[in-house]
C-alpha cells in the first residue's frame, strides 16, 4: 500500500496506509502509553491512556484506534495530554489496592510505570475500595480482582489468539469483572497467555507467585525442551544451594519464532529440573544394588568394560541409544563416538517421524522446507494428520493466527475432528489409516480416491478439492507421522506441481529433527548420508566399520540372543517409552545416562546423572528445521552434560580426544595449504575455521567445537554463525544432503503426547501433573464456539 505522510511531534513520518497511529508513533521511537492496546489483537479502546492531540479534531483522540491519514498533524506530549493521562491513571487507581510490595508484577508492572510517570500524589476519590480475596481458577491461573484494570487483553488473547474463549466480562461499567468459564474456575488449555499479557498483577501464575522479585533473577534466553516446535523461552534463574534454580519461564523476548506464544510446557514445566528424585551422583551396581560412587570410578569402569567388549566381541556387540532431547552437538558427538570409538553402527533412537524418507523425497529440491515463520505467513496451508493443538501448540498458534490475521486458506485432512478444523476453509474427515491413500490421490493416482469417498465427501468433491489445492501458490504442506516412507514421496510429488510449495514433517520431541539430522541411525550418518555410501565421511572417518548397524528392535533381538553385550543409553528410556522387554538388557553391561532413575536406568549397571537442556549449551533443530541456540540457565551440582560425559568415556577408553572433538591448537601441521586434499582431518578443520573467521576452541568440552564440525560437514547447516549466536533462528535445509533412506514404517513410534504430557520429562513435572489431576476431577470439556 502507498505510504501516508503525517507529522508526529514535528517529525515527518511516512507509514503504510491503514497503520494505527500508536504503531506509527512507535515506529519512530515515540512511546504512547497504552494498556488495552495490544498488537495483533482486536482494538478495544477501553483505557484511554493513549490520548493524543490530532489537529483539526475537536477532542483528544485514542491513538490505538485512530488510523493515520494524509497530512495528519499529531502531538503526543503537551500539558493537556499529560493532564488527561494523569486523570486516567487516577481513575484506574481509584479502586486499585496499590499493594505493589506484595504483588508479583511489582517491578515489571505497566500500571506501576504509568503511575510513576503520570500518577498524582493525591487522589480525589474518597470511596472505599472494593475488596475481593484472590481466587484460584486452576493450578496455573490465579486472579486478584482488585488489581484488574479492565483492559480486556486476557479475554482477547484467550479467545482470538488461543481460540479457547475461557475468559469473559461480567456486569458493566465500574462493576465489570473478568470471569472464568466455569463460574469459579477455568477449564482451558492452561497456556498462561492471559497471565503473560496482563499489564498488572491481576492474573498471576501458580508456578511463580510469591517466589521472588523480578530484579533478583537473571534471565537467560534459550529454547524450550518439550515439543518439537522449538519456542524461544526466557528462563529466570536464582542462586540456590545446589547451583542455579530456574524460578520462572516466560517469553519476555518476543523476537523468537513463537512471537507472543508459549504453551503450558514451555512456560511452566521447567520444574522437572529440581524434582526431588533428580540424580546428582553416579551410581554403580555393586552386589546387585545401585550404589553411589564417584565420576572417576564410573568412567574407569565404563572405559574398561566397553574396551573389553569391543576388543573381544567386536563393535557389533555394543548397542547405542541416543536421545530426542540432547543437543545437536551431543547427538553428533554420540554417533561419532559410536562409529569411531566403539566401532559400531548399532545406534538408533526413538523415532517419531520418518525424516529419512522426507530427506530422500526432497533430495535435489532446494528450499522446499518451510520454517515456523513461514507457517505464519503462508497464503495457504495444507495439514494432513496430527493434532497440532495438542501435539504442536506453537504450530497450531501460527496456523490459527495466520488464518485470523492474514486470512490464509487452511485445508485440514484428518481422521479426527481436530480443533483446527474451526479455522479451516475446508475440513475433510477421512478414515484412520487412509492418509497414505490421500497422499497417493493428491499425487495423481486416481484409483486411490475410492478409499476416500464417503457419504459426506463424494468423488467429485475430492477432485474439485485437489484442483483447488493445485491452484494454490506458496502452499505450506504439513504432515504428521501418519505419513511415512513412500507416502511421503507421493506427497512431495504432489507438492512439486505447486508453485513454491514447502513442507513440514512433524516429529514429536524438542530435538527429534536434530537427532535425525545428526545421524542417530544405524545406516545413516549426519545429513542422511548412507553408511554404505558415505562420501566425504569415509575420507574423514577412515576407521569406521563398513556395513550398516542394527536398528533398535534388531539390537534388542541381538541382546536377547546373547550377542549384544554392551548398551549405552543416553537420555532415552526405551523400556518405559517403547515397551521394550527389560530382559533384553539383563545379560549385558548397561550404561544409562539420565536425569532420573527411569525404567531403563533402574536396571543399568552404571547410571550417570546428566544435565538437561536447560543446564547446558548447544543447538536444537525444531521440526521445521529451524536451528536455534540452547543456553545454560539452571545448574545442578553433581551432574554433567551428556557432551562432557561422552568425551570422558572416550578418554577413559584411551581414544585421542583431539580426533573426536576438534579442539585446541597444535593439532595442525601447516594449516593444510601445502598438502591440499591429502591433508588430514585436523588440517581441513583448521582451514575451514580460518576461512570462516573462527578460532579453534580451547576445551574438549566445548560443544561449539562440534558445531564447527557440523557446519563444515552437514549439508544444510551452513547458516550464519553470527545470527545464530545472536539468538536468531536460522533455517536449515534438507535438500542437497545425503540420499536419505526408506525404512520400515513400523520403526516409527509416535509419542502421543498432548498439551499436558511430555514423555518421561512430563512425569517429573509437578505443574503438569497437577493440571492433569485437576482435569480428571472435572467432567470432559465440550468444545466452545468461536466468535
Amino acid at each position, binding site marked *: 500500500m502507498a505510504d501516508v505522510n503525517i507529522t508526529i511531534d514535528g517529525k515527518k513520518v511516512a507509514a503504510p496506509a491503514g497503520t494505527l497511529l500508536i504503531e506509527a508513533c512507535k515506529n519512530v521511537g515515540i512511546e504512547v502509553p497504552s494498556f488495552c492496546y495490544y498488537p495483533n489483537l482486536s482494538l478495544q479502546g477501553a483505557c484511554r491512556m493513549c490520548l493524543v492531540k490530532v489537529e483539526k479534531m475537536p477532542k483528544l483522540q485514542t491513538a490505538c484506534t485512530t488510523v493515520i491519514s494524509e497530512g495528519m498533524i499529531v502531538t503526543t506530549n503537551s500539558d493537556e495530554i499529560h493532564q488527561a493521562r494523569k486523570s486516567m491513571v487516577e481513575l484506574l487507581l481509584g479502586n486499585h489496592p496499590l499493594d505493589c510490595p506484595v504483588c508479583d508484577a511489582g517491578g515489571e508492572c505497566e500500571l506501576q510505570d504509568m503511575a510513576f510517570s503520570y500518577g498524582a500524589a493525591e487522589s480525589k476519590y474518597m470511596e472505599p475500595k472494593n475488596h475481593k480475596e484472590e481466587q484460584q481458577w486452576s493450578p496455573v491461573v490465579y486472579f486478584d480482582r482488585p488489581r484488574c484494570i479492565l483492559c480486556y487483553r486476557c479475554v482477547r488473547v484467550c479467545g482470538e489468539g488461543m481460540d479457547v474463549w475461557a475468559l*469473559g*466480562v*461480567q456486569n*458493566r461499567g465500574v462493576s465489570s469483572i473478568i*470471569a472464568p468459564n466455569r463460574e469459579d474456575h477455568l477449564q482451558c488449555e492452561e497456556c498462561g497467555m492471559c497471565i503473560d499479557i496482563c499489564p498488572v498483577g491481576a492474573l498471576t501464575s501458580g508456578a511463580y507467585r510469591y517466589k521472588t522479585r523480578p530484579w533478583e533473577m537473571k534471565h537467560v534466553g534459550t529454547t524450550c525442551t518439550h515439543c518439537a516446535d522449538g519456542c524461544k523461552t526466557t528462563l529466570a534463574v536464582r542462586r540456590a544451594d545446589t547451583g542455579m534454580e530456574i524460578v520462572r519461564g516466560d517469553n519476555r523476548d518476543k523476537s523468537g519464532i513463537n512471537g507472543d506464544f508459549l504453551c503450558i510446557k514451555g512456560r511452566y514445566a521447567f520444574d522437572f529440573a529440581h524434582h526431588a528424585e533428580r540424580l546428582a551422583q553416579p551410581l554403580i551396581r555393586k552386589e546387585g544394588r545401585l550404589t553411589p560412587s564417584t565420576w572417576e570410578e564410573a568412567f574407569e569402569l565404563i572405559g574398561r568394560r566397553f574396551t573389553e567388549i569391543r576388543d573381544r566381541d567386536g563393535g557389533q556387540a555394543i548397542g547405542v541409544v541416543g536421545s530426542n532431547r540432547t543437543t545437536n552437538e551431543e547427538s553428533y558427538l554420540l554417533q561419532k563416538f559410536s562409529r569411531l570409538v566403539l566401532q559400531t553402527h548399532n545406534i538408533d533412537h526413538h523415532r517419531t517421524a520418518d525424516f529419512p524418507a522426507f530427506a530422500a523425497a526432497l533430495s535435489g529440491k532446494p528450499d522446499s522446507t518451510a520454517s515456523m515463520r513461514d507457517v505464519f505467513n503462508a497464503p495457504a496451508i495444507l495439514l494432513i494428520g496430527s493434532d497440532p493443538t495438542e501435539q504442536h501448540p506453537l504450530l497450531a498458534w501460527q496456523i490459527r493466527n495466520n488464518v485470523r490475521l492474514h486470512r490464509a486458506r487452511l485445508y485440514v485432512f484428518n481422521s479426527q475432528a481436530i480443533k483446527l478444523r474451526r479455522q479451516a476453509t475446508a475440513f475433510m474427515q477421512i478414515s484412520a489409516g487412509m492418509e497414505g491413500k490421500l497422499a497417493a490421490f493428491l499425487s495423481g493416482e486416481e484409483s486411490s480416491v475410492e478409499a476416500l469417498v464417503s457419504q459426506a465427501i463424494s468423488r467429485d468433491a475430492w477432485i474439485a478439492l485437489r484442483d483447488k489445492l493445485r491452484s494454490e501458490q506458496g502452499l505450506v504442506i504439513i504432515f504428521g507421522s501418519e505419513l511415512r516412507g513412500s507416502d511421503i514421496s507421493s506427497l512431495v510429488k504432489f507438492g512439486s506441481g505447486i508453485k513454491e510449495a514447502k513442507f513440514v514433517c512433524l516429529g514429536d520431541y524438542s530435538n527429534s529433527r536434530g537427532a535425525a539430522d545428526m545421524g542417530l541411525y544405524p545406516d545413516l550418518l549426519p545429513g542422511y548420508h548412507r553408511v554404505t555410501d558415505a562420501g566425504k565421511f569415509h575420507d574423514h572417518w577412515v576407521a569406521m566399520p563398513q556395513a550398516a548397524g542394527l536398528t533398535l528392535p534388531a539390537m534388542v533381538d541381538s541382546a536377547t540372543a546373547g550377542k549384544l553385550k554392551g548398551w549405552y543409553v543416553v537420555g532415552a528410556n526405551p523400556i518405559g517409552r517403547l515397551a521394550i522387554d527389560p530382559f533384553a538388557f539383563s545379560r549385558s553391561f548397561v550404561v544409562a545416562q539420565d536425569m532420573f532413575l527411569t525404567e531403563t536406568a533402574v536396571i543399568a549397571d552404571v547410571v550417570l546423572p546428566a544435565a538437561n537442556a536447560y543446564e547446558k549449551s548447544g543447538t536444537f533443530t525444531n521440526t521445521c528445521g529451524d536451528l536455534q541456540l540452547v543456553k545454560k540457565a539452571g545448574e545442578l551440582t553433581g551432574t554433567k552434560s551428556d557432551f562432557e560425559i561422552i568425551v570422558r568415556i572416550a578418554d577413559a577408553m584411551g581414544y585421542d580426544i583431539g580426533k573426536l572433538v576438534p579442539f585446541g591448537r597444535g593439532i595442525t601441521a601447516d594449516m593444510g595449504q601445502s598438502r591440499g586434499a591429502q591433508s588430514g582431518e585436523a588440517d581441513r578443520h583448521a582451514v575451514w575455521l580460518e576461512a570462516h573467521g573462527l578460532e579453534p576452541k580451547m576445551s574438549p568440552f566445548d560443544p561449539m567445537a562440534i558445531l564447527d564440525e557440523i557446519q563444515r560437514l552437514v549439508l544444510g547447516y551452513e547458516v550464519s554463525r553470527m545470527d545464530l549466536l545472536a539468538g536468531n533462528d536460522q533455517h536449515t535445509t534438507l535438500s542437497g544432503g545425503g540420499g536419505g533412506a526408506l525404512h520400515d514404517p513400523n520403526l516409527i513410534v509416535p509419542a502421543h503426547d498432548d498439551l499436558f504430557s511430555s514423555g518421561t520429562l512430563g512425569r517429573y513435572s509437578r505443574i503438569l501433573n497437577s493440571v492433569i489431576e485437576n482435569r480428571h476431577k472435572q467432567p470432559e470439556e465440550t468444545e*466452545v*464456539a468461536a466468535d
Partner: protein
Amino acid sequence: MKFSDQFEQRFAEMLTHYPTKRSVLVPTLLFVQDEVGYLSDEVIEEIAQRLDLTELEVRNVISYYSMLTTRPRGKYNVQVCTNIACLLRGGEELLEHCETKLGIGHKGTTADGLFSLEEVECIGACSWAPAAQVNYDFHENLTVHKMDKVLDEYKKRATQ
C-alpha cells in the same frame, strides 16, 4: 429444552433478520425470560447451543442488562423509577412505600411469589413522573394512594 410454538416461530423468524446468529441473542433472551420467568442454567445452555456461543458469553450478556435475570422473580415485577424527574416528584417515597407494603427490598420477592420489587433508572415516562412499571405495563402520575390501588389490582388479578 422445550419452548412454546409461538416462541419457536418467533425465534426462527428472527434468525433471518441478521447476518450472524449471535445477533438474535438479546431479543431471544428477553422472549425466553417472558416465557420461563427467568434465565435458568438450562435455558442458558440451550440458547448458547442454538447460537453457537459459549455459556460464558451468554452469561456475560445477561449480566450486562439489568432487565435480564438468572434468578426467579415474582409474577409481577414492580419497577419503581427513582431517576431525576421521578425523584423530584416523590419517586423515593413511592419506593419506600412499596418496600414497607410488600415487605421486601430492592430485587426482593414476596414469599407468595406474587411480587418482586426493583428500583430502576429512568423508564422514559418523565412527563408523567413519578412512574412505575409492572412487567410491561406503565403506571403514571403516581401517589402512595394510587400505588396501593395498583398493587391491589394485581393481587386481585392473580387470585381470579
